[in-house]
């Protein structure tokens, strides 16, 4: 089977029934998608398949043949955080961080569809994602801010300061 993951082409031999999540994590070593419940109930494994959010634990790898897959690694790294990642940092929308990559990819797809800062619409878009730290308010605030196109000075938040220090940026 052939897929492109974050712009890199891969050829993988194996059963088309294997969940895409297992291919990403166990074969390709892409660990941004998390194996939370492994049965579609938590959303921590969500990736974009040709831009559409999908639970990678539920998707037979055969259905991803020939597609472009984006994981959180493909959104941006510590030195080039994407707007949605910056919004999550600015609004303290990650606590333990386990749900964060799935949340951000669902949010990215929502923004790509032209989603607004309407809280009800954001809740509908992220409705299958569970945050066991219960940080929902801050997550929704972050998505709403990104939907408004706000820009963030991450040096003004504690998490942002830590991130910029860790990557050698300004203190």
């Amino acid at each position, binding site marked *: 089977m052939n897929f492109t993951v974050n712009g890199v*082409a*891969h*050829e*993988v*031999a*194996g*059963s*088309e*029934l*294997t*969940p895409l999540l*297992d*291919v990403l994590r*166990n*074969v*390709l070593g892409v660990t941004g998608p998390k194996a939370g419940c*492994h*049965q*579609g*109930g938590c*959303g921590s494994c*969500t990736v974009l398949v040709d831009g*559409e*959010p*999908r*639970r990678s*634990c*539920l*998707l*037979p*790898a*055969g*259905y991803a043949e020939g597609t472009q897959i984006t994981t959180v690694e493909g959104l941006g790294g510590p030195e080039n955080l994407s707007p949605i990642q910056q919004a999550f940092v600015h609004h303290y929308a990650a606590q333990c961080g386990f749900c964060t990559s799935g949340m951000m990819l*669902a949010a990215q797809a929502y923004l790509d569809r032209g989603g607004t800062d309407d809280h009800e619409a954001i809740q*509908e*878009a992220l*409705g*299958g994602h569970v945050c066991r730290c219960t940080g929902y308010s801050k997550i929704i605030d972050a998505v709403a801010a990104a939907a408004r196109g706000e820009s963030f000075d991450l040096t003004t938040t504690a998490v942002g300061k830590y991130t910029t220090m860790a990557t050698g940026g300004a203190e």
Partner: protein
Amino acid sequence: MAGASLASGAATEVLMPVSEEEAIAAFGDGADIVVVGGGTIVVPETSYRRLRPEKALLLGRAGLAGVSTDGGRVTIGAATPVQELVGMPAPLGPCAANVADLEIRSQGTVGGNICAGEGHEAPRGDLQGAFLALGATARSAANGEIAEEPLEVFLPKRDGRLLLSVSYDEPAAGAYAGLDRPHTHDYTALSVSGARGADGTVRLAATGAGSHGQRLPSAEGGDADAALNDVSPHDDALASAWYRTKVLPVLVRRVLDELKESA
């Protein structure tokens, strides 16, 4: 390019037909074969090794997806994602919107929802009630023979047949009422769908009141409480039989009222 191999799922022979004819041939008599629509029901079962099928038939690329309308008759392919029904008139649209969340609705298929086996702790087949209320027919195959029959005839024997599509005549009016879910990953504990045909006939059906969707003919004359003559609700993790018995007439009344208002 990374050449790598996978260990899990290796024992199952996977068939991925690319046309309806190939799918029918691959299904054969349906023995020892598990049909996979979107994968949202089957994949957790195989991941956790609760299910180790000899053969898996993946329908995703068999050309069985799509909704078409021909002179007031709507046909929905078995591999159509549930999400494509959201926005359609009641009862189907609101019923589909009440299935899981956006991501799972976009992957799970109409055929998978209709053919889902009985859940262990919850009723499955959310859409069955809506299609029964619409008087839908099911087109299915086994042993290379295609048959089209009423959905209520098809449902009890769905395990042995490959569903290809469902069809129904657009109703004059439709209505849906269901219990709210505590979270999107729960199945709906109980819902009632209703439709009034062009000839004035009212059809009602429930999902969650039995092992699969069932018609409620006794209530179709307008007596909501009579719906309890048609079903015997059971206990599961989502609701007790007592609760379902209390709620069913309420949902039936709401659907009947909505149908009356749109008369």
